[in-house]
């Protein structure tokens, strides 16, 4: 039973790692070049601070996810991992929300501020960024599920065992 639990936990963590990694890669490779020689216009993710924050936050969480997967199951550090899971889930959610708000302005514009939508001109770039945001949303959902799962296995909120939770017991 505990072996199945351990494998399920590892699968969840690997999915989370994969989601954040894919969102980093897709956002970082979003690039479109318009115009003709010598008047080029580049649409890149570095044009917008929100997308840069998205890439940085997701790469930090990718590295964290990789190291947590390597943690041995019986160590007492799993309680610390619950707290770190909370902090990194919060970071992921804020970066995803920021990127979505800026992408919304890019897609629909903001008539009150005189900001025109740019998705009509750089359609491929817009689609690419949308893909990255979808991967980011999947990462957020998986991290929230992981947070609930960590609290369930490590901290034993329903007080099933007498002396509190032991990790992966």
């Amino acid at each position: 039973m505990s072996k199945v639990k351990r494998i399920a936990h590892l699968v969840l963590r690997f999915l989370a790692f994969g989601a954040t990694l894919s969102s980093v890669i897709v956002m970082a490779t979003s690039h479109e070049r318009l115009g003709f020689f010598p008047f080029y216009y580049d649409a890149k993710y570095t044009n917008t601070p929100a997308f840069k924050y998205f890439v940085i936050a997701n790469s930090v969480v990718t590295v964290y996810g990789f190291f947590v997967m390597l943690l041995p199951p019986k160590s007492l550090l799993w309680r610390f991992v619950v707290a770190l899971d909370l902090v990194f889930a919060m970071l992921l959610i804020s970066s995803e929300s920021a990127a979505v708000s800026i992408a919304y302005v890019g897609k629909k514009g903001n008539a009150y501020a005189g900001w025109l939508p740019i998705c009509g001109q750089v359609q491929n770039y817009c689609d690419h960024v949308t893909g990255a945001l979808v991967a980011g949303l999947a990462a957020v959902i998986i991290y929230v599920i992981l947070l609930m799962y960590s609290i369930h296995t490590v901290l034993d909120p329903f007080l099933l065992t007498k002396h509190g939770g032991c990790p992966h017991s």
Partner: protein
Amino acid sequence: MASSNAEKATDQLNKSSNALNNVMMPTTKTKTKLLKRDLMVLCLRVLAVLATASATIVMALNKQTKSFVVATIGNNPIKVSITAKFNHTPAFVFFVIANGNACLHNLVMIAMDLFGSKFDYKGLRLALIAILDMMIVALAAAGDGAATFMSELGKNGNSHAQWNKICDKFEPYCNRGAAALASSFAGIILLLIITGMSIIKLLKPNRINDIVP
């Protein structure tokens, strides 16, 4: 002889009952330590209510009207008045809603801490408080992130997309928005500490105040 035996017996009985009392009663030291933790969570919740409430109210009442001279016909300037309100931007609307939810959640939690010790269901109370706290932290973080980058866009513009900055024309509006953002950042740090302490409470529940099966 019989009386001394009886005395010895009563002495032994007294000693054993004293020993039993010392084991059964919780010592006053652990009692005050745990209550101090509960009091600290309550104080932090009150501060979080104040921070999120001020962020919500300042952003919701954020409005500025300014008139611009568009053209001049002869000697008469033609003026157009433009209003900047918080609900022009979906990110600020989300910010107001998220912070309002955080404020209401903390108010309900304070009420439950003070008055609701009897409501419990198989020890689920502590777990439910921790899970709801985590969800509120996530919501508030999302609202903060969106509003931060939207106001950064308003302050600096984006030359690549030809989006002009608006803060040089609507400076009081931008300043009030910045104050609301700062207050909500303080609120989210407090919310994070509160969530951490709620999770710690799951590890070591206070067996006097919290009902434990």
